[in-house]
């Protein structure tokens, strides 16, 4: 043991891994603490979306019995879609921060393992989503007397599934960023929107053509939004939809982590890590 070892805490085991993940989260906390535009951006879009769709809901409720019966279905859909979008963005933006600052070289020669880095990115994504969505949800109570929290436990299941699906998308985007560099930066913003039309966010799955329903069925988000409407419109929690979403998410996340690690290895083979930057 060298003299320096005595000054270091253990470097192996779950406690050390947790400490390193905390260090990465601390890095982002420092970043946000010193940058109010970044904090504002977290809550800005979810709040704006919720306000617009809230007024639309009021208008539609005056014209349609369905919206009177299913109060808040649009607001809930907007907020839950934002969970998915922000979750994906939370992973990829945190990774982009490292690329913008040309810091990846330092990170990847520190004792932080790639799996721990992934875990830190997902943890930051969760924090970003909570900072963005909770204020908008509370504002909806005040503005429209609609509380998404009235969904109760099913809301936790919907939230968790969308969060995990967002992580999967975010990790694949990170892999692409490692491979193609900052030229692929815009993928972080638009990738998740590719699935929006097929996720049955604002309309039921049944309105899609049969062949499209097959595609929509392999998206965990479709089962979440179908489940959400079931709770809000039919007042029924469908466990079959939840099981579908969880199973699909397990597969998505496994593939996403494998893709991220494969792109990481590819970046090490191609000598891309030191080249990544602004």
């Amino acid at each position, binding site marked *: 043991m060298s003299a320096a070892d005595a000054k270091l805490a253990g470097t192996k085991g779950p406690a050390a891994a947790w400490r390193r993940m905390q260090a990465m989260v601390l890095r982002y906390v420092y*970043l946000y603490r010193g940058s109010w535009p970044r904090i504002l951006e977290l809550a800005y879009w979810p709040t704006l979306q919720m306000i617009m769709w809230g007024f639309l809901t009021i208008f539609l409720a005056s014209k349609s019995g369905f919206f009177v019966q299913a109060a808040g279905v649009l607001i809930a859909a907007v907020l839950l879609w934002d969970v998915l979008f922000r979750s994906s963005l939370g992973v990829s933006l945190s990774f982009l921060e490292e690329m913008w600052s*040309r*810091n990846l070289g330092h990170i990847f*020669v520190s004792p932080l393992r790639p799996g721990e880095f992934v875990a830190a990115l997902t943890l930051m994504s969760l924090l970003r989503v909570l900072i963005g969505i909770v204020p908008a949800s509370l504002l909806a109570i005040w503005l429209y007397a609609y509380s998404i929290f009235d969904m109760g436990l099913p809301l936790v299941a919907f939230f968790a599934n969308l969060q995990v699906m967002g992580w999967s998308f975010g990790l694949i985007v990170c892999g692409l960023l490692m491979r193609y560099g900052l030229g692929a930066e815009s993928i972080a913003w638009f990738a998740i929107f590719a699935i929006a039309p097929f996720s049955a966010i604002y309309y039921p799955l049944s309105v899609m053509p049969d062949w499209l329903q097959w595609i929509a069925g392999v998206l965990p988000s479709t089962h979440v939004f179908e489940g959400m409407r079931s709770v809000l419109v039919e007042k029924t929690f469908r466990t079959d939809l939840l099981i579908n979403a969880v199973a699909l998410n397990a597969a998505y996340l496994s593939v996403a982590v494998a893709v991220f690690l494969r792109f990481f290895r590819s970046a090490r083979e191609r*000598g891309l890590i030191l*080249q990544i930057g602004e």
Partner: protein
Amino acid sequence: MSAAPAEGPPAAIRVSKLTKSYDDVLAVNRLSFSVPAGATAALLGGNGAGKTTTISMILGLLLPTRGRISVLGVDMLKRRYDALPRMNFSSPYVDLPKRLSARENLMVYARLYGLRRPARRIGELAEELDLTAFMNRPSGTLSAGQRTRLALAKALLNEPDVLLLDEPTASLDPDTGDRIRTYLEAYRDSRRATILLASHNMAEVERLCSRVMMMRAGRIVDEGSPAELIRRYGRANLEDVFLDIARDRRRADRGPERTGPERTGPERTGRAA
């Protein structure tokens, strides 16, 4: 230190037949060397010689095409995370986050390396490297010299047994550069640390390094102590030796180069080298 890995106690750094190729470009070609514990060695060579590529492979940022790397007795291709807590590096190719203050940056890395008393170690380094006055300023607002010192502080946070430095005193004025070199010497001697550096500052190499490996086109074309190389090439200083080697001029004793004729493919372009 020797070109070919020798028998005996494990060297702090041991590289054997290390090769890195990108498609048709051979960046590093069957490189072998070892650096004993407590020594300071330098990789010298022109742009594209393969210095940074070699350091990147030792760190694990770049995977070799072939060859073996061992640091502190750890096989870096199989168990690099066993060695990384006892290593560190600084390089002009990598920055610290510009929006974080110097103190915040050091705190993050102190925690990544698992320091027991991060604030105390950061305070020590700030004082020793003359960083105290601007510890709370965003790193992006620091001068180039201040950033270089901050990067060095980050590299020394975990009191590494093996330190890899790419241009460690780049952007420093002569006075600060001299103080940093003195600091590195003291650090090496007090901790018996091993330092491998790549530098274009020949005076720095002459002062710090007991051995120098001259690289061209991804191979070591000559090596020895600075004094040996100067004598061998019949030159007044290491800079002239560097020019002789970079321009493929023969050494004064006309002895064979260690690795044979150097016509081994094009230099790399567009990659850190």
